[in-house]
């Protein structure tokens, strides 16, 4: 199967620091792929390179069959790449519906001329966009808040709005940057249900997350980063037991003790 997203030898250096170190990874279409790792492992930098907000120092990114490595963020959206942000970035002064409509920007081709003259193409596209936006709001359960100002929404609702905005253009790949951040268990559960629904739309999900329960619950594949390097990749149950991963999170002494305990037949924690 041709991967939807392929990252080859991707690196990012800053003066005196290597944030991402020659990471190679493939995201297959369909399903949920998670990227995890301790703080500072390079996950957000990786995400920023994939979405086009940070220029890689080395390596290549291929998305939907195209080499997008040098492309600015705005070009990637048209290919079907969408993303949400760790610190929610909705457009506060605009209404919920308008926010979702901005997500559909790449689908509106009418141009200045058509807009000012209100040509038929403009009208049709605008109506279609509104319909799609409402459908996206239905998907996340915000249909009744369509005319509220985005800043008036609760944190959890703003997160859902961001997802609706990203999903409106029916992207091929959705990047979710710590979607469960700041959520209580009930909200996290609802979010997991939502992410499962996204799969039904033909959207592949790539997510970065710290909440292990969430990750293990909904992912098909997990890639683990530490100090900018990829240290493991596999299905969730394998990741749990991989010594390199345990060491990365808990440190080498605890990992050694757990390994000893497991060998002695004592059930370790977690």
């Amino acid at each position: 199967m041709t991967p939807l997203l392929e990252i080859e030898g991707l690196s990012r250096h800053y003066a005196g620091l290597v944030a991402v170190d020659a990471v190679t990874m493939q995201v297959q279409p369909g399903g949920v792929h998670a990227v995890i790792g301790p703080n500072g492992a390079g996950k957000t930098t990786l995400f920023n390179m994939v979405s086009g907000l940070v220029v890689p120092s080395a390596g290549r990114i291929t998305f939907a069959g195209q080499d997008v490595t040098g492309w600015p963020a705005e070009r990637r959206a048209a290919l079907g790449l969408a993303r949400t942000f760790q610190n929610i970035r909705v457009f506060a002064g605009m209404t919920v519906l308008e926010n979702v409509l901005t997500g559909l920007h790449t689908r509106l081709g009418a141009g200045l001329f058509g807009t000012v003259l209100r040509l038929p193409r403009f009208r049709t596209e605008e109506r279609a966009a509104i319909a799609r936006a409402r459908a996206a709001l239905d998907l996340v359960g915000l249909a009744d808040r369509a005319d509220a100002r985005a800043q008036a929404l609760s944190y959890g609702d703003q997160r859902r709005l961001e997802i609706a905005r990203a999903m409106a253009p029916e992207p091929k790949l959705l990047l979710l940057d710590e979607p469960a951040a700041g959520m209580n268990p009930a909200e996290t559960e609802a979010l997991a249900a939502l992410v499962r629904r996204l799969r039904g739309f033909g959207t592949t999900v790539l997510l970065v997350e710290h909440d292990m329960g969430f990750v293990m619950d909904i992912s098909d594949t997990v890639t683990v980063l530490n100090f900018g390097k990829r240290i493991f990749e596999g299905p969730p149950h394998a990741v749990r037991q991989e010594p390199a991963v345990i060491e990365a999170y808990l440190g080498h002494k605890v990992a050694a003790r757990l390994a000893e305990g497991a060998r002695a037949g004592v059930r370790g924690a977690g």
Partner: protein
Amino acid sequence: MPPWLDDFLWTYQNLVHALGINGLLALSMYVVLAVGQLSLGQAAFMGLGAYSSALMTLKLKLPFLLVLPLSVVVPVAFALAVGVPTLRLSGVYLAIATIGLGEVLRAVYLNVDLFGGALGLSGIPQRAETWMIYGLLGLAVLALWLVGRSGIGRAMEAMREDETAAQVMGVPTARYKMGALLASAVLAGLAGCLSAHVSSFIGPNEYAFEPAVTILSYVLLGGIGTPLAPVLGAWVLTLLPELLRGFSDVRLVLNGVIIVLAVLFLPNGLLAVRMKRIGA
């Protein structure tokens, strides 16, 4: 037209013209602030439009029908020269370059004979009419309103709120910023041409620092929620010195104070109205 209106317009002709022209200038600033940029070049672009159109009328003897559209050529050229390098950098550079532009042009107008030096250009035939000014103003407000209620308008507001998030949605922010700057140059250039052809005289000191900052005060007072708001801001600040004699001395001080108060306390302007951005 009823005779009382005729009389009124005749007596207050200059004021009526000024209201229309300042409205156009306010829109020229609005368009740039609407995409989250700060350009202070409106007065400079106006000057370029005024001088180039005056020269076209006086020296080339072109008919006004041609002069009016051609008056945008020079302002647009300068907008490109200043915009292309600065728009890919932080917004501060555009602001600085446009303030500098006004000053430099003032020095050029003063020192180059073609522009009449300190005396400026006089004897410009009064080819522009009130209806042209208001017609253009009306069209501009309408066009900006129609654009505001569309995908383009949403993209502009999104860019203003959060440029990075807008880029991720696919909004071509660099292109829109340039577009807004060029639109600003067009509006200001037309305002300059019309102004030159209703007041028959233009001088080098009319298009530099003070008018540039004054135009900003129009828009900060009125707000940028809808295209009509900055125009109303311009009207209030143009009428005030007329209505309150003795105010004209402190007019500039007032404009400066308004900007300070607006930025510190009233970031949405006096009219904190926001237009809907859905076009269907």
